[in-house]
């Protein structure tokens, strides 16, 4: 009786962790869609860059989790490389934007340039 109960709870734990993996992938996809929406509607160029950075970080998560769920090979190398490239790209674009004043000031009220 106790053995059967232990087997049942073990199977239900595997079921729970598998579905939690699917739920986590769906949550990451939903967050990526929200970041994409901010990149589209973002009033300043900094908002778009923030959304792109957040999208890249969530892409790393999606490659790691989804690769494990689908049984890919060496997806973690790609995720690691993507994290590095995402960081370097964000820093490069931010250094480029740091002291530049864009020509059009569309739809923003906070800037007092």
């Amino acid at each position, binding site marked *: 009786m106790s053995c059967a109960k232990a087997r049942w709870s073990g199977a239900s734990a595997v079921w729970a962790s598998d579905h939690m993996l699917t739920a986590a992938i769906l949550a990451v996809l939903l967050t*990526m869609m929200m970041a994409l929406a901010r990149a589209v509607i973002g009033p300043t160029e900094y908002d778009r860059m923030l959304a792109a950075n957040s999208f890249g970080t969530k892409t790393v998560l999606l490659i790691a989790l989804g690769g494990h769920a689908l049984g890919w090979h060496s997806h973690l190398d790609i995720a690691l490389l993507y994290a590095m490239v995402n960081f370097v790209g964000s820093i490069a674009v931010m250094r480029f*934007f740091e002291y*530049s004043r864009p020509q059009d000031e569309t739809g923003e009220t906070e800037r007092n340039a």
Partner: protein
Amino acid sequence: MSLVLDLLSGLFLLLGGFLSITGGVGLIRLPDFFSRVHASGLNETLATPLLLIGLMLQMDWSLDLLKVLFIIALVLATSPTAAHAMAKAALHGGLRPRAADDTGRPEDDPSKA
């Protein structure tokens, strides 16, 4: 042992997915660029290690665990750095944080008086 690992993995994945969605909602709904940096940076820094630890608890004992640890270390190092760089770039680019008593009208802006 496997039961405990599966339950812990499901718990970590659930918490990480919830935090990820929270960061996405904050990225869309917060009113200011600096508060959006705050939401995105903080949530990425906690949600990514939670999701990846939940992934590590499901994986076999191999070299891939070390790669996931590398990804966690890289994200923990680069995500606050990128958030700081974006906030600094926006501040130097002329964007100002919205104060609590900011009415939004230009004649009430104390930096222009």
